[in-house]
Structure formats: structure tokens, C-alpha cells
């Protein structure tokens, strides 16, 4: 009887030892969810640094991002004066909702892994310098605010892209994925 007790007890101890020693890894996946918001509209508002009354607005719109129709580029241009500096604010909207949702603030809240890039067509005498910074260490540019410096008269395309760079943002445009990719025509007169 005593031996039975002892064997039983030792068996319980052995089971406990195995129980406490095993199951060293656990994995969990947060899967994709449908219904993410759209970025239907990109807006540039350019204010002349030397003439606050000189405000130019350009707007690129594609209300249904899933179809193959062309975007509305009727307002996707900026008329800028030559040899001038413009303070530019970049906005992203979701106009599939009523009222339209301004996604810009959300991007600003998540600025530590977002970057707006500006790709200037060859021949267009324009320099773009981002003026806002995130809270990374060291701080990196964001691009929701920028200075456009114009040179000689001319026209050309400015490609504006919003890059989503979760834990890979390093100041370059290359890492991550692209949330928005639009073109504006810049006219320098």
C-alpha cells in the first residue's frame, strides 16, 4: 500500500515536471480584415511665402479606387510663380464617405512610419524640401508639409506618393508599400 502511494506520488511529480517544461512557444496571427478606408483624393495647397494672398490648390480624385476608370485630373495642377517659395500642405481624403473623411490627421498620428515622397519630372525647375518631422530618434521627415522652390518658367509632372513603412522607415522612399501614387502638373510662370 505504501509503495502504491509512493509510485502514485512520483507519477504526479513527473507529470508536473513535463507539464511545466513543455509548450515553450506560442504563436498568434492577427489576420487581414476587409473594409479598409480608401484614399480617394490627394490635395495640395500651396501658399506663396512672400504673398499670402497667392494660394494655389490642386486636387487629384478617384472616387472608386477599385475600378479601372481614369482619375479626375481636371484640378490636378498648380500654377506657381517663378523664383518663388511656396509652403505646401498635402492632404489625403476618403470621399467615398459622407461627409468626406480627412485621413491626413490619422497619417500624422502615425507619422513615425509614413513618408510622403515627391518625384519631379526632368526639366521642371522645382525643388521640394519636406519641412515636418516625426518623433523617431533621430527625427525623420514626413512630407505632409513641404516647401516648393520654383526656378525658371516651365511645366512638368510632380509625382506624389504616400509610403507606408511599418518599422522600416529610414528617411528613404524605397522601404515599405505605397498607399497612394498620384501625379500633378506643375506650371511655373
Amino acid at each position, binding site marked *: 500500500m505504501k509503495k502504491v502511494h509512493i509510485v502514485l506520488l512520483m507519477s504526479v511529480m513527473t507529470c508536473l515536471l513535463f507539464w*511545466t517544461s513543455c*509548450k515553450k512557444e506560442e504563436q498568434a496571427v492577427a489576420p487581414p480584415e476587409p473594409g479598409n478606408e480608401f484614399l480617394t483624393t490627394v490635395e495640395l495647397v500651396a501658399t506663396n511665402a512672400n504673398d499670402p494672398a497667392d494660394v494655389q490648390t490642386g486636387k487629384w480624385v478617384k472616387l472608386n479606387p477599385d475600378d479601372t476608370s481614369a482619375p479626375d485630373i481636371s484640378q490636378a495642377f498648380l500654377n506657381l510663380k517663378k523664383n518663388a517659395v511656396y509652403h505646401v500642405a498635402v492632404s489625403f481624403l476618403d470621399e467615398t464617405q459622407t461627409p468626406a473623411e480627412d485621413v491626413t490627421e490619422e497619417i500624422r498620428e502615425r507619422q513615425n512610419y509614413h513618408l510622403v515622397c515627391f518625384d519631379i519630372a526632368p526639366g521642371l525647375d522645382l525643388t521640394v524640401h519636406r519641412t515636418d518631422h516625426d518623433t523617431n530618434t533621430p527625427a525623420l521627415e514626413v512630407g505632409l508639409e513641404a516647401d516648393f522652390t520654383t526656378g525658371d518658367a516651365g511645366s512638368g509632372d510632380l509625382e506624389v506618393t504616400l509610403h507606408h513603412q511599418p*518599422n522600416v522607415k529610414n528617411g528613404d522612399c524605397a522601404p515599405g508599400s505605397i498607399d497612394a501614387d498620384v501625379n500633378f502638373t506643375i506650371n511655373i510662370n
Partner: protein
Amino acid sequence: MKQLLKIPFTVLAALVSVSAQAQHFIGVTGGLSIPSGNFTKTDYADSKSGFASGGGNIGVTGTYFLTKHFGINGLVSYQGYGFKGAQDLADGYKEDFEIDSATVLIKGRNYGINVLVGPYYALPVARNFFIDARVLVGITSAHLAGNEVYIEDQSDGTFAQQAASAAAFGLQAGLAARYNLSRHFGIMLHGDYFSSKPNFTVSNTNRANEAGRVLTGYNQPISGINLNLSLVYLF
């Protein structure tokens, strides 16, 4: 009246007779470890959350009696805990990094190794049956599990919270019911409160950007209840 006076003397005589049977002992112990408090929270947004669940413990314990009732007890034990809330971590990182999906892989486990010693009191309540009490203090070497987070949008973005270790003052106190099965063997059923507060320094790798839950330290009590069964050798 004479009969009434006899009662305390009879009880005292009985206690003395059974206490004379008190013997030193050493044995193996094991059972459930049930943590509580912040250590068991699974709130992604709360840096106090420890994501620990119940586990088990196993060890060696022994008592050397200095008198019929008082002795010195020692305990060397391994105390492991499970992990819970990995899904909460994955959901949190997915939301914080605004990504399509996130995978969290827990690396290692939460555990502690205890080396404790302290006073022990044995109260004989019947022949071969004792109620014991102990208060143990000493060192707890604690280990905190780490994790890896895979960002599905960008494989280069994978980052990790490394497992961490720290030593701390450990306390364990409780009661036990002990029954001597024979002259040399006994079994015990313990209920003990345990507590320690290790100050972990946590390192993180490949955290390129300041976003999402980042733990650089963890200094919360690791406390709860141990429910144990012991087999002891009496000598």
C-alpha cells in the same frame, strides 16, 4: 471538577506524546502555481501587463527541527508559468502599425528558480498528523519570455523583444497538512503565497521606428498561490 481539571493535562500529555514523534524530513514537492495581479494581465496598451497564465512548480524541500516544534525549512524549486494573450499582442501591433496582418511568436517562457530558507513550525494534531507553517525568504532568479513580431507587409520590419532575466528577493509563506505514512515516509499538502519583484531590463532588436508597444523594462510583482503535494523522507 476533578474531571474538568484532567482534560487539559490529558490534551497536553497527548500533544507531548505525538510531538515526540516529530522528525527531520526532506522530500520532493510539486504542484500548481497560480499567479495573479499585473503579471497575468493581457492588455496590449498597458506596459504592466505580464501575459502570464497558471503553471506548475517542482522542487526539493526539507526541514531540520531545532526543537519539537520549531525548525529551519529550505526550498529549492523551479516555478514555471504559461503564456496567454499572444492574440492581444498580435492585434495590437496590427492596429498600431496599420498593417494587413501581424504574427507574434512567443520565445521562451516565464519562470523562476527559488532558493529559500526560513522558520518552520509543526503542530501535532493527531498521531502521525501535523499542521505545519513556514515563512521562507531568499533569492528568486526570474525569467521573462520574449517575442518576435512579423509584419506581413514588410519582412524587413520583423522585430523582437528579447527574453530577460533578473534576480530578486523572494518570499513564500503558507500552511501544510503533513501525514506520516510510515516511520520514514510522509506526504504533505501545501498552500503557499509566493511573491517576488524582479526588475527586468528588456532589450529590443530591430525597432527601427518608435511605434507600437515597446517594453524596455518590467518591474511588477510576480505573486500568487502555490498548491503543492510533497513526498518526504523522515529521519
